[in-house]
């Protein structure tokens, strides 16, 4: 069926398909359409949608709901994400499943509230203290908004951690005709629960890369969540061996599973000297640029990155190997180009990495990318 929808609707529908039953958020352009849809849709399925008194309260409500077993989501834009920062850390340290949609808009502070940007890419990665790994997915169209939101919930459940959806103003507010019969339904994953019988140790894992079993607040066990460095019983500790174990566990449970986060689309009809790497709304200009360039007889491959964090290093290495020129268009000063350069450095021959960047609130045109395809 051909429907007309914006990214906000596709994300909302993906969230509901994944079993989301709690949403709290505070209005902010351009994320508000997601809040409004969730407030309208959740009561219909017996879920809870709340407009919090501010961003800090809203993400706090989501964390609380997730601790009781809910599948929670919130949505905001840059300034709201700044306010989320401390509680994102709480989610990581407490091992709380949560989906956070960041609808990127231009600039620091109130910036360009109604204009597009992709300036939060490194902020998502390093936006809370400690530098622990995070997961961030990035859709380029409505079908991917639907599918990747489901995947975000599944990752949040499986690894008990906040998962970001990095999107932008144009993706959320542009409406387009989409074939919804091709929308992909991903099998739903639920967090592994502790058996009701027997002793429950909230942060016990067999291997550091494992995710602990979950028991909800208000359930069969006494449950302890903590934001402080803790041992397996969730009690504050400064004992170096315990602290080391917890730190490494939070690191390993993501890093040891990197292969699962390698979500990319590599379009290489033939080996080409130029590879263009992009993500989100900018990837659409990239795809059009490649089509035009090929029509003009040029050879080019494209790699669309759907999982920004952790960096899909293996897929990037495979795509870049043998290329002489890598073009990275993005709506910032070159934040993801840094990651591509890291990959390129280790390759022989080492390809030249070139950025195509805009920070004026306008989209990068296919023509601006095509100019860099030689």
């Amino acid at each position, binding site marked *: 069926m051909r429907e007309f929808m914006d990214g906000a609707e596709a994300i909302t529908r993906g969230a509901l398909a994944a079993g989301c039953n709690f949403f709290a958020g505070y209005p902010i*352009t351009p994320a508000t359409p997601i809040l409004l849809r969730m407030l309208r849709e959740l009561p219909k399925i017996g879920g809870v949608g709340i407009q919090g008194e501010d961003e800090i309260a809203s993400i706090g409500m989501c964390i609380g709901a997730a601790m009781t077993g809910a599948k929670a989501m919130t949505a905001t834009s840059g300034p709201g994400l700044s306010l989320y920062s401390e509680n994102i850390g709480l989610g990581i340290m407490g091992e709380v499943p949560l989906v956070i949609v960041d609808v990127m808009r231009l600039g620091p502070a109130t910036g360009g509230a*109604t204009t597009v940007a992709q300036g939060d890419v490194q902020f998502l990665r390093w936006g809370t203290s400690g530098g622990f790994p995070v997961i961030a997915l990035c859709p380029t169209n409505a079908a991917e908004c639907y599918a990747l939101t489901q995947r975000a919930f599944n990752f949040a459940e499986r690894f008990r951690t906040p998962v970001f959806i990095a999107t932008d103003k144009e993706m959320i507010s542009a*409406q387009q*005709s989409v074939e919804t019969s091709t929308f992909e339904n991903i099998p739903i994953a639920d967090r592994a629960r502790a058996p009701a019988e027997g002793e429950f140790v909230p942060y016990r894992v067999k291997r550091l890369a494992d995710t602990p079993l979950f028991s909800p607040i208000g359930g069969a066990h006494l449950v302890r969540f903590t934001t402080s460095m803790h041992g397996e019983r969730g009690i504050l500790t400064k004992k170096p061996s315990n602290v080391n174990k917890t730190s490494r566990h939070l690191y390993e449970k993501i890093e040891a599973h990197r292969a699962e986060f390698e979500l990319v689309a590599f379009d290489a009809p033939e080996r080409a000297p130029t590879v263009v790497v992009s993500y989100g709304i900018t990837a*659409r200009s990239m795809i*059009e640029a490649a089509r035009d360039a090929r029509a003009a007889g040029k050879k080019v491959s494209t790699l669309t990155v759907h999982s920004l964090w952790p960096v899909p290093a293996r897929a990037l290495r495979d795509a870049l190997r043998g290329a002489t020129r890598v073009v990275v268009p993005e709506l910032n000063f070159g934040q993801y180009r840094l990651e591509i350069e890291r990959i390129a450095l280790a390759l022989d021959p080492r390809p030249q990495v070139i950025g195509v960047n805009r920070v004026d609130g306008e989209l990068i045109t296919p023509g601006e990318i095509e100019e860099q395809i030689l």
Partner: protein
Amino acid sequence: MHQEIIISGFGGQGALFAGQLMAYAALAEGRHVTWIPSYGPEMRGGTANCTVIISDDEIGSPLVRNPSAAMVMNPPSFERFEPLVQKDGVLIVNASLIATPSKRADIRVIAIPANEIAAELGAAQMANVIMVGALVAATGALKLETLDQILEEHISARHRDKIEANKKALRRGAALA
């Protein structure tokens, strides 16, 4: 068929609605379509525009730099978009507010006193619909009957008494193209 259309005016003139009307009609006609709003932090009185792409083929980038057709409802929109229209493209001008004549000889310019016609038809808010009528007639992008159907489906309950007037407005515009 591939049309890249920009519709621009003051907030409150119905530029975004005019674009949505065309987008829904394009969908009803089985075409691929994108609609992107662009607006400032202001509300009524600020500038607002939207971009609509209607195509028989899948649409890649929803961005339009040089539209094949533009509909400008106020002087700032005229100044901004008149130079950008593609050669052999169409420019629909709201002559009620825009006195400047177009300097472009390589495009088709249709100047319509849309505010006056709308007032004559009974509702000043219909200037946008009159201009849509001219735009679709000049470009052949959509059928008037499809727009009728979309008006019936999308005009809010409190404005239902205006549906017939809106249909008339479409046809008045189309006759001027």
